[in-house]
């Protein structure tokens, strides 16, 4: 116990130092504009922030809605201990997305325009509305942790009463905007490489997000159990990892059938050098995890499950970078590589979120152990009486 508290601030100090070091990039951006800190141009108007913070950020926060659905709708109580950390990281992930957009938008002070000027045809409009609403839903889904800490029983009871409608709303909103991020790219049939451009992009985006949800939960839970010293049930990890091959299998099937149906399957051999990236994302993020996690002895080892989850995550990040940056042709004559300050913004935001997660784990009841869960039920039972 004492050891844990002593070792904790060292990591926090390093992360705080990173946050402070990245701060100047934010200040320069708001004083002098996007051109002053980024390599973005008319030829490449979307860069690192859209690919990493928006496209990867939203997909990697999918653990929130997948776990909430598994626990509260499908009634798999076994996963209850990991649901709350998953909802917390999703909540922070979406705040990160919004913060990144507040940097990336040319006029961030007008971000609320999305709420009053509606364009129903725009996939980005749908993403904007869903991200805003879902962040609110996640705040409510997470709020019991704060109310429990403060012993506020009335709001706690209200949230518990609307918990199921909240979770269903979260699943609906997530389905819509995870897929709409794919719909956004449908507008670019001439610039997105045909290896990736397909009318079913929204479906592929949704499927890969559902697959990466449990992988992210495994990733986070393993790390936080190391850092904060909670015990992690291996049956929970094994159970989560068992679902991943099925979802990735559907994803792989969709991808191959779609390529064949469009008559573009030959591109995976001929579209050099972009086909290497396609193979990369398929082998790293889809085939390898399917093979690994289908083996029972891999699922029994928490270390192997962790690294398989990492593969799924890396594959997804590669996929989102491919579709939103590398395989998306810029205007002729444009070469783009993110500037140092663009990296500083993205790294600073992630470090920020890590700090909040650390604080939350210290101050709030995040990782419930079984005793605590039973205790809560007791308290609820008493209230009912």
């Amino acid at each position, binding site marked *: 116990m004492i050891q844990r508290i002593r070792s904790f601030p060292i990591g926090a100090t390093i992360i705080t130092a990173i946050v402070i070091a990245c701060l100047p990039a934010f200040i320069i951006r708001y004083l*002098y504009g996007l051109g002053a800190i980024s390599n973005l*141009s008319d030829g490449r108007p979307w860069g690192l922030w859209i690919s990493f913070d928006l496209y990867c950020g939203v997909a990697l926060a999918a653990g929130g809605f997948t776990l909430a659905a598994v626990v509260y709708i499908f009634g798999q109580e076994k996963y209850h201990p990991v649901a709350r950390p998953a909802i917390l990281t999703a909540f922070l992930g979406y705040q990160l997305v919004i913060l990144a957009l507040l940097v990336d938008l*040319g006029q961030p002070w007008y971000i609320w325009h999305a709420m009053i*000027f509606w364009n129903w045809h*725009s996939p980005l409009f749908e993403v904007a509305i869903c991200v805003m609403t879902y962040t609110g839903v996640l705040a409510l889904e997470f709020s019991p942790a704060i109310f429990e800490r403060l012993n506020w029983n009335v709001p706690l009871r209200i949230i518990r009463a609307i918990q199921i409608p909240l979770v269903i709303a979260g699943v609906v909103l997530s389905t819509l905007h995870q897929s709409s991020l794919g719909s956004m790219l*449908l*507008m670019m049939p001439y*610039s997105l490489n045909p290896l990736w451009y397909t009318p079913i992009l929204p479906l592929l985006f949704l499927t890969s997000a559902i697959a990466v949800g449990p992988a992210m939960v495994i990733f986070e839970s393993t790390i936080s159990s190391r850092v904060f010293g909670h015990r992690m049930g291996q049956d929970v990890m094994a159970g989560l990892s068992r679902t991943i091959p099925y979802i990735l299998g559907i994803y792989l099937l969709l991808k191959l059938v779609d390529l064949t149906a469009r008559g573009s399957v030959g591109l995976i051999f001929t579209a050099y050098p972009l086909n290497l990236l396609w193979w990369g994302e398929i082998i790293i993020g889809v085939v390898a995890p399917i093979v690994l996690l289908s083996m029972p002895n891999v699922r029994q080892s928490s270390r192997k499950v962790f690294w398989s989850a990492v593969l799924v995550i890396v594959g997804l990040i590669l996929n989102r970078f491919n579709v939103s940056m590398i395989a998306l042709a810029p205007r002729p004559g444009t070469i783009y590589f993110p500037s140092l300050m663009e990296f500083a913004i993205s790294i600073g935001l992630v470090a920020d979120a890590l700090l909040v997660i650390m604080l939350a784990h210290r101050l709030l009841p995040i990782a419930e152990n079984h005793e605590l869960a039973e205790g809560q039920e007791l308290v609820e039972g008493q209230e009912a009486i």
Partner: protein
Amino acid sequence: MSKGVLYDANKCIGCRACQVACKQWNQLPAETTTNSGTLENPPKLSARTFTKIHFTEAENNGKFHFVFTKLQCMHCEHPACATACPVAALQKTKNGPVIYDDNRCFGCRYCQVACPFGIPNFEWDKPMPWIRKCTFCADRLGAGLEPACVKTCPTGALKFGERDDLITIARERIAASPDKYVNHIYGEKEVGGLSWLYLSPVPFEDLGFPTLGVEPVTVNAERAMGAVPPMLVAVAAIMTSVYWVIQRRQKMSQTKESDKNKVEVTK
């Protein structure tokens, strides 16, 4: 009826008076450029340059051509930018122009990414930047005037009028001298039709024009967006019924167990 402009590369002499007229009417500042070894200047469109004449040296049927083409917003009939814009800052008017409203825009730049011609440009160097592009002089059109560039063109290379009439005129010009024109009106069918139409003595791909199909680029995205409301209802319904079924099953098994317990107790 929708207005348009017909640009005839065989009539253009590359004087660039249209560039000057555009800068004057829209009160755009000059750009600082360096000598790039050609008379073409500035090198590309930007937030301060809505139109420019592009010079191409091309060969067609064994003949050398020095071809000028005027670049500006094409004012598509089905504009990708207008469908992309989440706040409807870009809109296609009935009159023809695709207009931009900076009271709505928040600078997401999706229009820039979506435009198949690479037209909307952004004020990267300003702390409060807007999107800028050719307006088709929507203000002048509203007052019954021609666009500034058309008004100033000394050779009639730019012709303003009803889009349908312009297509007829373009066909007549091709038919009258088929050796001077390629048999293609660029913009008649491209991505569902453009308000700006082009005639050229050489194939358009040689001029750097993108080769585009007849289907609007917005088709797939709009189809996907049309599926959103039914998806919303379907996912909500499925989740609710799954929840209901699972709760019911759990209750049933609980009552069975308690029944068993009762039986055991009575025994």
